[in-house]
């Protein structure tokens, strides 16, 4: 059922992509922060991948020490502002809030976090400065959350830092890949600028590292290199008809949407293939872009989906229909997508079987593949002795984030295969500690 009209202006786009976690006002923050129990050894801290001292910053908000709150947050997480709104808080800090055990709504930690950091960013409050130069230089490949976090931490240690970014904007998936109702481009970019202004690291845009020569150059110019390249394009499914006009990858679809907003034309009928959080985002976004019918198709059951339940619920509430236990066989159409031929599936003895006696077609004008992204294997091949695991993820030492090639460190989606912004922020920070330990303190 379509809930949204096709947005034809930036105004209408904003209306359809209303912020899910809007900025709190002072009164909301005052009352919400007053509810925190200040638990001992608080479960919310343990549930935060970056271990932010949440009860402390909430108490600081309540006592009107917003700058202090902001410092507490950024001390643990350089992307504290973005994480406040894009983190799946329901399964992290807020999911761990003890109020849940009492059927009392948990503290809105994410929004409080965003409230505090937003104040500092808006007032351009300087909280950090670069450390005294230590004479060492580090190159970072990729200006995503892992790279930015790594750069900030390295600057505090006194390293000279250059980030090489293939695209023309920083922040990686935070700006290119997150659903627009979670965070706006402006907010993401403001945070990066805020950090850059205080800590002074350079980001070289449109500078993809894609040849052996460029790698050699980095290696000779820098003492260490951090790989924060995330994932690549949507992986190929190998389906018949996949090359037809109107078949797009979810990552590419979302990126276009984030950059062009209402100028993106989503046709009337859309099929989204996949069961992860990106599939939910793509489906939800297609519905919000005015598709009359958006169908989410997943090969296993609803319970088996990788997506968080709240992400699925959000898609459903945007008017998305879902099909479970179906697998695509072929994308049909004459040069242009006209539909997807599916077969029903079932699990027999723990194995997923396709039932070829139960085949049907869903008519559509667009197919969004949200079945995972390819790894940046082409880059990894250029680096000597860089060990990867069986899923093409860079292998690292879990404590130092050091790769098998001692010049290189890595973090983010490149090592975990695709997780949250907060995980990347943590990795980047910890890798900086690894670099410090290796180059300075050992």
């Amino acid at each position, binding site marked *: 059922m379509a809930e949204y009209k096709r947005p034809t202006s930036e105004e209408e786009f904003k209306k359809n992509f209303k912020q899910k976690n809007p900025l709190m006002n002072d009164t909301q923050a005052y009352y919400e922060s*007053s509810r925190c129990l200040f638990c*001992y050894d608080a479960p919310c801290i343990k549930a935060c991948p970056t271990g932010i001292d949440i009860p402390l910053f909430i108490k600081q908000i309540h006592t009107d020490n917003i700058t202090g709150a902001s410092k507490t947050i950024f001390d643990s997480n350089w992307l504290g502002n973005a994480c406040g709104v894009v983190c799946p808080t329901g399964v992290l800090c807020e999911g761990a809030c*003890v*109020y849940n*055990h*009492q059927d009392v709504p948990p503290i809105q930690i994410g929004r409080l976090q965003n409230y505090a950091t937003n104040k500092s960013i808006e007032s351009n409050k300087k909280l950090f400065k670069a450390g005294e130069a230590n004479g060492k230089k580090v190159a970072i490949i990729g200006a995503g959350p892992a790279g930015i976090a790594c750069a900030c931490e390295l600057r505090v240690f006194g390293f000279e830092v250059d980030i090489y970014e293939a695209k023309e904007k920083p922040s990686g998936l935070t700006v290119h890949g997150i659903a627009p109702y979670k965070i706006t481009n402006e907010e993401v970019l403001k945070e990066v600028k805020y950090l850059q202004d205080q800590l002074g690291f350079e980001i070289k845009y449109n500078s993809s590292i894609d040849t052996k020569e460029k790698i050699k150059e980095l290696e000779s110019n820098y003492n260490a290199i951090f790989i924060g390249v995330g994932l690549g394009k949507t992986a190929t499914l190998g389906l018949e008809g996949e090359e037809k006009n109107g078949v797009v990858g979810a990552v590419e679809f979302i990126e276009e949407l984030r950059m062009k907003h209402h100028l993106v034309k989503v046709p009337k009928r859309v099929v989204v293939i996949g069961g992860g959080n990106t599939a939910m985002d793509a489906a939800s976004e297609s519905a919000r872009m005015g598709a009359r019918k958006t169908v989410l198709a997943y090969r296993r059951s609803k319970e088996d989906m990788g997506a968080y339940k709240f992400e699925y619920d959000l898609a459903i509430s945007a008017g998305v229909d879902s099909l479970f236990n179906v697998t695509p066989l072929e994308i049909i159409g004459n040069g242009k997508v006209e539909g997807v031929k599916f077969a029903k599936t079932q699990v027999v003895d723990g194995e997923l079987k396709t039932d070829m006696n139960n085949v049907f077609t869903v008519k559509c004008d667009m197919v969004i593949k949200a079945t995972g992204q390819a790894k940046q294997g082409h880059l990894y091949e250029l680096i000597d002795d860089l060990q990867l695991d069986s899923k093409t993820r860079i292998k690292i030492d879990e404590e130092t984030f050091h790769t098998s090639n001692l010049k290189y460190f890595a973090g983010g989606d490149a090592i975990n295969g695709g997780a949250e912004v907060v995980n990347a922020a943590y990795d980047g920070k910890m890798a900086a500690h690894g670099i410090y330990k290796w180059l300075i303190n050992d």
Partner: protein
Amino acid sequence: MIDLSINFGGIKSPNPFWLASAPPTNSGYQIMKAFEAGWGGAVWKTLGVPVVNVSSRYGSVNYRDTRMMGFNNIELITDRPLEDNLREIEEVKKYFPDHAVIASLMVESRAEWEQIIKDVENAGADGIELNFGCPHGMCERGMGSAVGQEPEVLKTIVEWVKEASNIPVITKLSPNISHITDPGLAAVQGGTDSISLINTIKSIVGIDLDSYAPLPVVDGKGTNGGYCGPAVKPIAMHMIKDLAQHPEISKVPISGIGGVETWRDVVEFILLGATSVQVCTAVMHYGFGIVREMEAGLRQFMEEKNYSTIYDFAGKALPNVTEWKHLNLKHKVVAEINKEKCIGCDLCYIACDDGAHQAIALPIDLNNRIPSIIEENCVGCNLCALVCPVEDCITMVQRDDGSEHVTWNERTLNDDIPVTFNDDRAGGKGHFVPAPTDALKK
């Protein structure tokens, strides 16, 4: 049939809910509005010598999400012309002949007292309240608490007033004194018909962190104010008790003042011997309508306990308020945690470990946050039950069988005063005390 009416030292009122002499009783308009809302009596804002007031008059103490938990003011007695007040007293009495209108008075010389008493009697006031409590401004001119703090002076003025007046006299006491029974006794010896207390407590509610001046700030400076509101209730109750237990003073009725806001406060004041209550801060916070909750709650309580008038339970708690030396040393309670209700905030653990007797343990399993009581260390102090945010989760359970009863007083009489530290509840004897260096391991 419940009858809330009272006869308070000769002043009749349809119920015990009176407005204290304060800003809410500044005019006939306010008092008529209050009577319409359900208040039984009102003590007019103090009439007396001409004054001038300052702008910026009130300050407050907020606690967590609660505003005005404590409140102070630097406002003086009425600044409205005496004739206006007298005319309005007359008018109020015309509309509400059965309600209690009491004139609070504060003047200096005997002649002034005699004149103003005549004036308010002519206006139709049902009684007089002597303001011997105001701790700011007026005391600097030798009135208010300057009188309340000098029992001999107080007694003399009460004598003058009693000689001059034909209507009942209430003496209002200041709490800014070491022993409330001193002015209380002086008032009774001077012939007062009744006593009201407490007036406000000398206070500084806060310091402005930019101007370094106390709140409320008057052009860069401030002065002590009179503190009131929910925060002062415990002090008021203790003073009421002191008077109500005094053999001489208890012969006159007591009007209880200080932080009364709910029906519970009213019942507690009555149980300690008050037979009228006066309210100010609650009205300044919520308006006259707050009396609805007080009256409904008081009626409900009386119905459940089967009382028909407030005199049926006035002072009922007094026999149980005793001195420490009469408490049963053999009584033993320990804390019990309801594991079903516990939400794992572990505030009880840290409160006990850091703030009390190290009698609560956390489970070794880090995923389990339900603490347990170390019964041999529990002295039954209540702290855990007080900090627990869940209703009825931690309860104090009696462990002695009630058969033994020994008090300090009895031990003193039996020449059984300890000469060594042998209390079996004491740390190091009755229960273990961790070694100082154990602190460093945590």
